[in-house]
């Protein structure tokens, strides 16, 4: 499975196709340091005011901050607001 995903990513990069469309990778858009939009997510794993972990297929997106709040969420997109300090990928 991992090989398949890696291949899909390579093909997407080779043909200049957006990887979030081809390989189901999450797309993260951060506006300033107060708002983060995550598209193509697979659910929330952890949620607190300082730390939000979002499942995104092969990667997990971890957002560190202060006063974080899940503003809205649907099957594909979610919006987090609050003071964002850092984002890491596991």
């Amino acid at each position, binding site marked *: 499975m991992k090989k398949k995903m890696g291949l899909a990513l390579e093909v997407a990069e080779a043909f200049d196709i957006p990887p979030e469309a081809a390989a189901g990778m999450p797309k993260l858009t951060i506006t300033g340091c107060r708002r983060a939009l995550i598209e193509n997510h697979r659910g929330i794993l952890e*949620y607190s005011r300082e730390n939000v972990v979002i499942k995104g297929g092969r990667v997990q997106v971890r957002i560190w901050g202060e006063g974080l709040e899940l503003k809205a969420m649907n099957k594909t997109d979610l919006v987090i607001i609050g003071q964002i300090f850092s984002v890491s990928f596991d």
Partner: protein
Amino acid sequence: MERIIDTILGYVRIEVSGVRPVVLLNLCTDSGVRFWAVEYVDSFTLRLIIRSRHLSRLEDLARRGQCTVNWVKPCGFPVHLKKLRRRYVLIAGMLACLGALLWSSLHIWEIEVRGNEKVPTWQILGALDECGVGIGSFWPTISTEGIRSQVQLILPELSWLTVNVTGSRAEVIVRERTPKPEIVDEKAAYDIVAGKTGIISEMRVYRGVAAANVGQTVLAGEKLVSCYVPSSFAPPRLVHALADVTARTWYEITAAAPLKYWEKVYTGRESTKYALILGTKRINFYLNSGIPEANCDKIITVEQLKLENIFALPVKLVRETCLEFETRTVSEDRDRVRSRLEARLMSNLLERIGREGKVVSSDYSFSEKNGLLTVTLRAQCTEQIALEQPIAPQ
């Protein structure tokens, strides 16, 4: 926009707790239960908002996610509506207001007339009133075509008219008839006579036979050019005489003005009265008549409840402010009165001699008697005196 819809449809604030309440969020997204404003309370508790209709489904999902719903707080418009359920008087009042609003929106409470230049607005409003378009008229029965033909019968000066009704406001657009130009009958027999008394200085006859000469003194109404054109071989022909006749004319115009006049001085005392106009009925909020006792200027302002250019209600607030004044005699500077009278006399003279006329010389004389300054203008001018006159039928 979504927030407004949520408020109208109603939403609930809930608190859920469990070992991993985040699981519930994922279950909600998978099941299509929309939620927002997720608030973290502690590791085992979350607060969130969902739509009222999703509550039962969320309770099922909470059981599946091993969570419990601690409390539910309904919010939004349906909650307020429920509170009003037993307040019959309030509901009746609201319904009455809605009915009154609907009723008033079917009647005209404001009429605006546009496009008139010569025909006064009050005359058009009067004609419209005769045709059934006035304050308080039921507008759905108004037929623009019928109104147009009826108003044109009353006011033939109008060539076209339309009535546009927006809410309870009628906009009447009119077009005035262009007056028919005077048509000169070239075949009719006309003489040229002197319009004013003077000495002829120049004469050009284009048609007809000259009956006066240059240098001759003529009186007003004297024949200058005859329409009878004699012929050696046939009886005289009758033509429409045409000529330019310039003459020297003399004027003596007098004007007078007092050197003292009355001036208003406001005392600072003022009183304000209010009245309410409901439809066509006026309710005065004062006991005595509206006629002021002392010398005063009355300023009336009428304010109507309306949305500009959209909707008007049949409620007008009238405010009458009386500003009291006293009169005192003021002497005016003699030179200033003199120059003002001179200017008026000259303007009057120029009006009399017309655009083609010229003032050759002018002289002013003054006299003062009983506080009245009299100025006399004596002027010599050159102007056109030819005047067409139809010959009397024989």
